[in-house]
């Protein structure tokens, strides 16, 4: 198990005092596949570098199992690492690249080469062993980098945006393969990525970082369905969640979300605490949780269609309220069969009361969700 306790990393130099990582706590179980996900500058790569030992935390403790590793050199941490640029040694053959970490451990050449061959077979690159990295395609280089990281049987595999240099289709194959290999070897793996789809697809748990702090650390579906705050809610999902400014009000016993363009009555089975009344909130609904409904539906909200985009599998419709008072467009997904044109008046409702409320007086903490 890997434990990070109150990790702080402040870089010195020009931006001294700026904390790249600011009080980060994380626990990773043995054999788990964890993704560090966040926008650029959120501290995810810095965190990975500290796990690798390439950077030393300014404060806090990193434990591998029971062992405090803050001051342990990378080579003594039993880790394998794949860099975004792959960082293959350009003047060594694929065989020598894969065997490099073994040779540096004074493992005899023959044995090192045998193990390099074995590892290369797992990654299906055993026919490329005599090539130089410059003679390989991007996908092949990526495999060599994986093989080099795995050749020493590491306890922990660290992946720094390993797929960001691959084309979209290859990415899908490679990520499935990485997951398969990880499961079969049972190696604890930490991947840094800014690609949410990638993170959600292959990880057991995802840590969403922003501003050097972990916003939420949970299984992918949980992050998606129960975002703990506004950042997580707006960061995950494509197209992103609709977030409408509003206020909670008590209208003759009914709890109502009042926005500039419409009002929404909260379902009676989930009554909020009275203290929330009058608070400024953001009302969040995922585009696929909005449906076009009949005019007579008692939850129907009239909307004017502004834009229709064809996504292939369906349509993305952007609507605004009939008076045009809403500051943001509301996006919803419909199927291809629905005839909708810009300028149409349609009625929409929230599917099965699936919505989120974020308390804007408390940094956008989630106060309510139904899923």
């Amino acid at each position, binding site marked *: 198990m890997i434990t990070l306790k109150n990790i702080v990393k402040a870089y010195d130099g020009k931006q001294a005092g700026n904390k790249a990582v600011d009080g980060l706590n994380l626990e990773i179980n043995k054999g788990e596949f964890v993704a560090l996900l966040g926008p650029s500058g959120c501290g995810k790569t810095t965190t990975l570098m500290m796990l*690798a*030992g*390439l950077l030393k935390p300014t404060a806090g403790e990193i434990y591998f199992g029971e062992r405090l590793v803050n001051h342990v*050199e*990378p*080579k*003594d941490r039993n*880790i*394998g*690492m794949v*860099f*975004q*640029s792959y*960082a*293959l*040694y*350009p*003047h*060594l053959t694929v065989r020598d690249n894969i065997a*490099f*970490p073994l040779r*540096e*451990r004074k493992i005899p050449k023959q044995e090192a080469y045998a193990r390099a061959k074995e590892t290369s077979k797992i990654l299906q690159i055993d026919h490329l062993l005599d090539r*130089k990295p*410059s*003679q*390989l*395609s991007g*996908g*092949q280089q990526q495999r060599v980098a994986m093989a*080099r990281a795995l050749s*020493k049987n590491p306890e922990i595999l660290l992946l720094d945006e390993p797929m960001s240099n691959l084309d979209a289709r290859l990415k899908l194959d490679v990520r499935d393969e990485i997951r398969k290999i990880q499961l079969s070897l049972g190696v604890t793996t930490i991947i840094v990525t800014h690609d949410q789809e990638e993170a959600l697809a292959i990880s057991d748990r995802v840590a969403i970082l922003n501003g050097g702090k972990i916003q939420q650390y949970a299984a992918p579906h949980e992050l998606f369905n129960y975002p703990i705050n506004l950042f997580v809610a707006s960061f995950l999902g494509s197209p992103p969640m609709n977030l409408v400014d509003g206020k909670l009000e008590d209208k003759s016993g009914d709890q109502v979300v009042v926005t500039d363009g419409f009002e929404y009555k909260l379902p009676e089975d989930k009554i909020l605490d009275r203290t929330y009344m009058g608070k400024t909130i953001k009302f969040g609904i995922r585009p696929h949780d909005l449906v076009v409904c009949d005019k007579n539906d008692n939850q129907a909200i009239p909307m004017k269609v502004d834009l229709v985009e064809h996504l292939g599998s369906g349509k993305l419709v952007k609507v605004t309220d009939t008076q045009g008072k809403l500051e943001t467009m509301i996006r919803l997904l419909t199927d291809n069969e629905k005839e909708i044109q810009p300028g149409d008046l349609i009625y929409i409702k929230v599917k099965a009361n699936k919505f989120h409320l974020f308390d804007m007086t408390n940094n956008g903490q989630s106060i309510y969700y139904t899923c």
Partner: protein
Amino acid sequence: MVGMENAVPQAYKKPFSKKIYPYLFIMPFALLVFVFFILPAIATVVMAFTDLNASLKPKFVGFSNFAKIFSDYNLPQILWNSAIFAVLSLAFSLIFALIIAIATQYFLKGKVSAVIYRVLWLIPSIIPAVVYVTFWKYVFDPTDEGFLNSLMHDFGITTDPVSWFTKGAMGIVILATIVSTISGGMILLSAAINSIPEDLYKAARVDGASEKSVIFKIILPTLKWPLMYITISELIGFVSSYFFIMLLTNGGPMRDTTTLSLYAYQQAFNLKYYGYGAAVSLIVVLISFVLTLFFLRLFDFDQMIKRSRIED
């Protein structure tokens, strides 16, 4: 001219057809190259087969200039001097350039001290040669006033001044030469080391690479082509240059520091045996040419121009 009558009316015709433009652009430089490089080269070759001297009435003498060179009893010593000068200068300046480049660009990467240190090394190569040579002459001055002599006297190591130039003229010449040439190689090598992506060092640290492995498996292979360039260009420089030697010792004492190129210069411009001097300098060119081919082969230059193959 069948069909020409139906052709589109002729547009404005440029004064020259398109094909001539590249040549027009190259022309001025081609002329300069011809006047200042090719003509002198041809003149030298022609001169080498004449007895052109101060009287400026050349006669064609065939290979007799070359025969004269090989029968010159000074030749073995001059060749030996040339070889010692070139080989030692090259070896030392390469090794020092390499050590300084690795030290400042790898071990002290990004440190201000490393930058200052490299700038200091640049000084010898940017001050005028005459001033530079005067400095060395002062250091090794054979009288009591000389820097080294007075220093040694003050520390009580010697009582009488040492005549440095009589004892080790070649050493002084080589020392002065390498100190001023190190910086050129150092800059090229530093730039090459600087081009190594940071990730490679990080990967090496994760892989537990020793400093020795980093230097021999990552840094040195990267320096192969710059090293080849420096080796060849500096070697040609050492084989054909005479300037420092002329200013420092003028080939002396006796012929102790006379190299082949200095000998060519002296024959042509001091003694006005232009034809003979030209013949000697042709030999210098020939030696440089052979050495260049040898080092191209040694560094396996073919490798550089071979294309890599990529399959998916």
